[in-house]
């Protein structure tokens, strides 16, 4: 006997024209520039706040540990580090302008800090893509 699917417990994603209205990429771009902003734009206040606190704290701890902010991409490892740093959006640009962070890693704590900054950028990209998925209806 075939059982009809129970759709009442599953929230339907926004599909078709409804999901394409307006600026579809705005949460993605806002979330990249400012951690959590993509979720704030969609009214997901708690999720956005938790993401913002996590990513900003991770980045700030990296800076507090005198982690390296990549400024040039001379070899492949520098390119990967730069890509991770750029994921932080405005946080990275502001800290570069203020001259925060170190240019060279000399002690092990600075190495931890460098990794914190890179991973904060990568987590921010994940959060921004999540906001985009919420906007397009791929995720409820």
């Amino acid at each position, binding site marked *: 006997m075939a059982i009809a699917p129970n759709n009442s417990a599953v929230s339907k994603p926004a599909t078709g024209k409804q999901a394409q209205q307006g600026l579809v990429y705005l949460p993605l771009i806002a979330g990249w520039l400012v951690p959590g902003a993509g979720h704030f734009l969609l009214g997901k206040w708690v999720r956005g706040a938790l993401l913002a606190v996590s990513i900003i704290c991770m980045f700030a*701890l990296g800076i507090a540990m005198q982690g390296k902010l990549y400024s040039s991409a001379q070899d492949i490892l520098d390119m990967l580090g730069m890509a991770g740093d750029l994921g932080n959006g405005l946080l990275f640009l502001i800290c570069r302008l203020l001259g925060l962070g170190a240019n060279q890693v000399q002690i092990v704590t600075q190495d931890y800090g460098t990794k914190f900054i890179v991973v904060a950028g990568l987590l921010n990209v994940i959060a921004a893509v999540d906001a985009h998925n919420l906007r397009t209806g791929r995720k409820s």
Partner: protein
Amino acid sequence: MFQPSHFAALSLFALFASTVFGITMRETPKRMFRYGAYCFVLFLGSAVALSWVMYLIAP
């Protein structure tokens, strides 16, 4: 300059990364919390286990 111990740095890293993983990889708050806690335990557990492995194979 903030100079945490290796374990403190690891714990902070695991906390923040697990929070983001939980929120972005699951859809309901309950499942987000459970997945975040699962990731946190895996981060710390795998680090402790690998530490023991390195300790035991060290010359």
